[in-house]
């Protein structure tokens, strides 16, 4: 039996709440943070629903005001969730009590699920392009005059990783995962790998995104992935997803390290998996192959049988193909011993690179509180989704172990297995 990886802190910022407890309460109360996009004038847009952060005030979300010049909106969101998690864990108080913090800093890693680049970053060049009118030489001259010298650094896909390090002085192993919808889950999985390998003893995990940016709405709609009416997972009338902003962060530690510092342990990451369907960037296999294999591998990694699982946090992005395939995978894997299924994107929207991290935290709360929230958007379970034991009303987990399923473009699927300590 290998060393356990425990969860000693968490934090999030979502469309439904400014922290974990308000997000959790919103989900329990059946409230959604999805609205018409209001960070720009979206009036008249055919697809205008988005899960935006409410009352976005960067100066309140990130303490270091100088930093705001060097980072973008999604970095602010990620760093806010990260700070909540680090504060919650008490690891900084622990470190500050050490005679020599060098070893602690060297053995604390940072693992991030990042949205990579954004269309909006390039908008700084629209002015120079307009003036240059197709003349590249003129564009070069104008860009040097008009664009902020720090442009490249502001747009780095690994800014959150870098600034977690700079903020706290952590110097351990790190990874910045840019794998679309599984990024947040894979950040958890890779943190566990480096913890288990003995390269580090502590890890900060962050998943963040601002998926509902200006250009993303029409472009996602162009490939048929967005709903103009709302995200209704597994429902007969589901017609697509809703993009959102958000971030989730966790503090993970080797059990031994956490116990040594008398940390409050909220739960444990028991196992994980990532698999690819290999069918192309936008393809989703009808038979749920990727989800089924991801779940089986994660259970094997955890040393658990399907009947030991107490609940499922489904990817449930509201897509016609993806939800149906996922439900098929659940019935294939869990058979008659149907496991309660819930979902969170109907409330938070689809935060893409953040979703696996946020949903891992919410799953931990489900297990700790022994409550599997209902999915209030469910009016009529689609026949092709019959394999998912999802309900509009609350259910109870069958055991203190839950799984979190995440899916992404490129046919990527991941599964995280968690247990609660409560």
């Amino acid at each position, binding site marked *: 039996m290998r060393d356990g990886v425990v969860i000693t802190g968490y934090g999030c910022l979502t469309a439904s709440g400014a922290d974990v407890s308000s997000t959790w309460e919103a989900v329990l109360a059946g409230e959604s943070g999805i609205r018409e996009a209001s960070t720009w004038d979206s009036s008249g847009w055919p697809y205008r629903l988005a899960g935006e952060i409410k009352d976005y005030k960067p100066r309140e979300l990130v303490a270091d005001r100088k930093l705001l010049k060097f980072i973008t909106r999604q970095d602010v969101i990620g760093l806010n969730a990260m700070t909540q998690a680090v504060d919650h864990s008490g690891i900084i108080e622990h470190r500050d009590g050490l005679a020599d913090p060098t070893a602690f800093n060297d053995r604390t890693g940072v693992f991030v699920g990042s949205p990579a680049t954004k269309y909006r970053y390039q908008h700084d060049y629209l002015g120079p392009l307009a003036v240059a009118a197709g003349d590249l030489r003129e564009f*070069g001259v104008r860009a040097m005059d008009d664009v902020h010298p720090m442009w490249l650094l502001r747009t780095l896909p690994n800014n959150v990783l870098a600034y977690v390090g700079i903020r706290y002085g952590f110097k351990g192993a790190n990874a910045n995962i840019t794998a679309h919808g599984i990024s947040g889950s894979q950040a958890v999985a890779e943190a566990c790998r480096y913890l288990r390998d003995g390269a580090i003893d502590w890890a900060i995990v962050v998943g963040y995104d601002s998926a509902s940016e200006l250009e993303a709405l029409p472009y996602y709609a162009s490939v048929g992935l967005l709903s103009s009416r709302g995200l209704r997972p597994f429902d007969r009338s589901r017609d697509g997803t809703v993009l959102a902003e958000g971030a989730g962060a966790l503090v993970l530690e080797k059990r031994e390290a956490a116990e040594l510092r008398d940390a409050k342990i909220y739960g444990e990451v028991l196992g994980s998996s990532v698999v690819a369907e290999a069918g192309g960037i936008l393809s989703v296999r009808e038979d749920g192959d990727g989800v089924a294999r991801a779940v089986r591998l994660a259970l094997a990694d955890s040393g658990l049988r399907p009947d030991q699982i107490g609940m499922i946090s489904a990817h449930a992005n509201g897509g016609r193909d993806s939800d149906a395939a996922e439900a098929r995978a659940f019935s294939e894997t869990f058979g008659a011993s149907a496991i309660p299924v819930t979902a969170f994107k109907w409330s938070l929207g689809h935060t893409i690179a953040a979703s696996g991290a946020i949903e891992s935290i919410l799953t931990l709360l489900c297990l700790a509180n022994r409550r599997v929230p209902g999915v209030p958007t469910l009016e009529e379970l689609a026949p092709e989704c019959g394999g998912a034991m999802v309900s509009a009303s609350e259910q109870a987990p069958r055991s203190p172990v839950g799984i979190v399923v995440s899916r992404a473009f490129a046919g990527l699927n991941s599964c995280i297995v968690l247990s609660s300590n409560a």
Partner: protein
Amino acid sequence: MSGPRAVAITGIGMVTPLGNDVESTWNAILSGESGVREIAGFDASGFPTRIAAEVKGLRAEEVIEDRKSLKYATPFSLFALAAAEEAVRDAGVRPTAATAERWGLVSGSGMMTMEFDFLQRFQREFAADGEIDLARLGAEGERFISSSEFARHRAVAGQALLHQRYGIRGYSANLHTACASGGQALGMAMRVVRSGQADYVLAGGYDTMINPIGLAGFCLLGAVSTDNDRPNSASRPFDRTRNGFVLGEGAGFMVLEEWRQARDRGAKIYAELAGEGNSLSSYRITDSPPSGDGPIQAIRGGLEDASETADAVDYVNAHGTSTPMNDLSETNAIKEVFGDHAYEMAVSSTKSQMGHLIAAAGAVEGILCALAIERSTAPMTANLRTPDPECDLDYVSDGCRSMQIDTAMSNSFGFGGSNSCLVFRSPGRVDSRER
């Protein structure tokens, strides 16, 4: 077998500014060529830097016979496909129905996935005066973009193409830690094989930032050399007159394989990928501190992970970017970790000839370490003519050197402070250990 599984490098492939495959790149390294020229891909005359190390003459239709995939490939995905194909062919093994789920893909990819042409069209269509017409974007945006453009702009576009082309159905990761991406990807891939999550991993990195937006970003920062009138010597790592790096582009891929399985099938093994050190500098976004703190932990971590002593290292392929701070910080890190041995081993930067391949750099330079071991040759640091008193190691500045190399190391340090150090060993050392 006791202990963790050893990881063999059984196939290699690359596309670099020095050549579109392994042999042409290696031959160019031996003959001291430079891949740096005046930028040919677009009119760079308005930028302060007008030189770069571009890939030359790679023809898309020779890389992908299948027209449909081509629609989904940006230039850097094309580099990835070409390098991966060479690596898979070289390994002499590819996924089958029986093994597809035991194959993984771990890659480091670049940050610029939106094409400049698309941005130009966007500007003409929706921002004629430089400001976005929101009502028009809302009404017309859906029809403006094609589905293949949408696909190409995803950060996972290259990952999707590689999975599909080879039918790789197991573990998958796509990483971006700027200039450390390729090194970190090889390190993670090694751990995936070691842990038994996969028996084979196609691992590497691919990137280009040689486009008007990428060049603008680096010029604005003042990070790239402006030696426009002498491109061949613009990249001169560890030289006292160094004044910034030179942008390169390309891809490097390896097939990593569980050692005994590779031996059992009679595979050619270039080297063992023996250890990974991975650290964060947590100092500044663009630099490590002069003391080498950050890189020091990565180098120590790599040695420890490979169960190797510092004295055993024969050759270091340095990050060596040719920026004033990197080369000093890296030199000091090497001195701190290796002590007197720092002066007894060969340390060189192949960026002196091929420029900085950003997210691909660590992958290509890892392959060069495997070749250095296989061919008993340490690549050189070209253009080092004016010694820097603070950079006083043996940088192999007088041409490539014939020498036995049992243990080699590759450093990659990224913007954002991520550091990767990989340790490579000659195959004979593993076989004697495994016996």
